[in-house]
């Protein structure tokens, strides 16, 4: 089963029975769930929300499986859906009152006992590493949504400018300029760490 491409699997859903379509989307989830969660976590900064939205993204894939067109890679389509869900979530979050700590308690960086220490690192080094990771994530989260998206796509997901542009629905030049600004802001915010550390 794993030998089929993503596109073959989603195309296989067309006209398929409900059960078969569920199995095929389940296989796609096996392949992509982790990365989609990571992507959504990067956008929302909340692990629980990211998990929930990732599942919702696959439910949307399942519901709209007939709409997939071969002009785009499946993963691009999936990430576009996931991104739209994340944007909706962020929009809704602004409208509703924020539960104190709801977004931060789910950050693994705030749970040093749960986080896996770097192999061979001393406790002090591990703590410093976690501080650094936390600061980076906080800096990424503090970016405005358009900038955070390109950072997550290009630097975290290591997607090309062209793929990011396709997912975001903007020209490649926009991706390039947004990424430049985003990195510039991250550089400003992380400068004390960069100057102090050196281990980065």
């Amino acid at each position, binding site marked *: *089963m794993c030998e089929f491409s993503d596109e073959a699997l989603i195309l296989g859903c067309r006209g398929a029975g409900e059960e078969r379509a569920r199995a095929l989307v389940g296989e796609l989830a096996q392949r992509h769930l982790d990365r989609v969660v990571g992507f959504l976590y990067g956008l929302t900064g909340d692990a629980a929300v990211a998990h929930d939205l990732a599942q919702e993204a*696959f439910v949307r894939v399942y519901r709209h499986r007939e709409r997939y067109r071969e002009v785009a890679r499946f993963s691009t389509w999936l990430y576009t859906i996931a991104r739209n869900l994340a944007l909706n979530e962020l929009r809704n979050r602004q409208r509703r009152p924020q539960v104190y700590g709801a977004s931060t308690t789910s950050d693994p960086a705030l749970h040093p006992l749960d986080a896996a220490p770097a192999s061979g690192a001393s406790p002090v080094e591990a703590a410093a590493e976690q501080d650094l990771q936390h600061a980076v994530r906080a800096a990424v989260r503090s970016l405005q949504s358009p900038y955070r998206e390109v950072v997550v796509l290009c630097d975290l997901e290591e997607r090309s400018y062209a793929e990011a542009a396709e997912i975001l629905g903007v020209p490649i030049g926009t991706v390039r300029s947004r990424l430049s600004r985003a990195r510039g802001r991250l550089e400003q915010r992380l400068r004390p760490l960069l100057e102090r550390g050196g281990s980065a």
Partner: protein
Amino acid sequence: MIDPRESTPEGDAPGPFSEELTELVSASLDGALSPDEEERLADLLAQDPQLHAYRERLRRVKRLVAGSAPLMAGAPGAGSRQDALAELQARLARASAGGEPGLGLQVKLGILACVAGLVLVSWQVVAFSRRLNDRSEAAPQKSEVSEVPEALPDVPDLPEEVDLTPPEDPPGDAPEAPSDPELPEPPLPDTPPEDPQPEDPAPKDPTDPSDPQDPDDEGEVVAEVPDATPQPGPDEGTRVRPEDPTPPPRPALDLAALKRLVAGIHAAATPLEQRPSLIRSLGDPRFDHPLAYQTLSAILAGQLDRSLPIGQVEGRAIGPEEWKAAARLACARLDTALAVRVLLDSLQGDQTSDGPAVEAALGRMRAPASVEAMAQSLTGRTTLVQAEAALRALAAVGDPLGYAAVLEVFENDRAPAILVRQAALALGALGNDGSLAPLKGGLGDKRSIVRAGSAGGLGRLGARLPDCAEASVEALAGALRDKEFAVCSAAAEALAAVGEPGVPTLIACLNPSQEPRAAVRDAAREQLWLLSGRPLADAALAADWWREHEQAGIPLAQPTAVLAVDPDQSPLAYAGWGERVVFMLDTSGSMRGPKWTQTQAEVRRAIEAYAARRTSKDRAWVNLLAFADAPRFVRPGFANVASRSGRAGVLRLLEQLKPVEVAQTNLLKAMQALDAIPEVDTLVVFSDAGESPAALARTFDSVRRSLARRPLRIHTVWLSGGAGPLVVDRGAGHPDDPAGATFMRRLARETGGLFVRER
């Protein structure tokens, strides 16, 4: 010119630099700068240490962000991955009308996994049945096949029905018959006479890119003549396929033997080295049955990969690649429409690196039904990779039956450029004079890839049909004036392919008053060098040679396979150089010692030879791309080596380069790094190509994909020991060549470049 201190409003560009400048710096971290931008940035970085420091900080930021990627792992409150997937299945079930939310999660998962597996297996069987029905006319000998598609034996169950004793002697691995009477006879006597490959009961599969003994991706026998000058065929000038002699009768189906064979293939107890032979035996014409196709399809789809043991026999790996190679060969030997379909269907999804091997297998098929199936695949629903494979195969087969379909692709305005290019080359190879007008029209296409392909097609056509030679040369002379160097280069190569009628045009092109562009003159000079075996530096020398040749009244010889080079000169001294050249240098650990010494010396000589052919007014942009595990440009921008200072700077950087002891070769990443610089028109690769055959196959495929976006000429220098003198090799290679040499040769041939190796 950017003022590095120009500030933009607060918030848009952090720091003291302008927004445009920060964008340049940021994009440089992703290798997303154009050559001009790279040069500009390099200048600015050299002038401003603060900018340099800023770039380093951005680089660290990028690394830090990338380092925080594993976000999913250990996320509290998220539960396990299995739980997440199970929850998803529950949501999917709720989303559909037929959900079963009452079932336990584990049970549901198990059921769904089983259902998915069964669904896909049955899906394949049904698809086969449909194809059988669709093609029953094309393969009339399969009458009994079409009667039983729904009742196909289930392959995994077969071992229970038959004797699973592994054969003592593998059919096909040795000339003698198998000692186990339960196993089928080797297919030797049943080979159709039209099969171009002499039968060998233990053939090394030439369709497999991973097989170092594969002589050529087009299935040619080892020859001294490059395929740029195809020989006129017996059916030249014909529009209609000659009447076929009555095909030899197919032997009767031997289903019992086929079942035993399939059982042997699936039996875990079968010795490792025998399984490929058993798979090859499926190509016996007696086994023209859905069970054989189903088994071959499963092998090519990798469905056996997990269930069967793999290992090494006498240092040779036996596993999925070996099985696939055997399956492709079996398809080629079956030579039926269904076998074509099985091969094309194997090019699904990410398995694109199998393309060359599938093309080679298709190119061996000669049966009219097979050719028609390839042609039909071009007009039906097909993927780009499949269509490309079919086009290349049709060109290799050269059967006029494929002409109409190929022409349709060529004239299809919506077809991707790479397909149209391939169709142009196929039209030329098919040798139909009706192709002349469309190919001439193709020279006016707005896509340079199509124009270059049309030029190649005209060259093949002119070589194949003497009546078309003059018209082809006339059109190609016009193509030499194309604004794109790649098209000019393809036109020069095509003129050489036409032979005598094309030579005067090439000689005229050497004259600076007629052709002011040095790069185009280089392209013509290279072809004349390859035709004559002499370094014809200018038009006067070339005219003298041509006069001598005509007076002697001897037909122009085919280019020799190996061109010895003056040891004092670079083997690339007369190569065609473009205007923007990248030298890609392998700095992996295996290049240390004499190989690296030779690399540095040869690159130096090549750069000096290139510079010597340019005046200071010409453009001669060069950069060095060092690659091992990862590629990196040695200079941030290109240097004009036509100027003394530019040349000295590049050579100085070259001297500083050293191989990295622990680094591995990764040609694929290096090739992909070039994608960011579409202006590069010439690449020179120095490497021992010390990668696995599978990795080399992926790289080769990647290069072919990138040719869809832009034409690129690649000269390759394969270094085996670093001691011998270098020669230019235009031959088709030898079956015993190492995989690295075969890869480098194919890379050069695919792009019209030169392959250089040690003598």
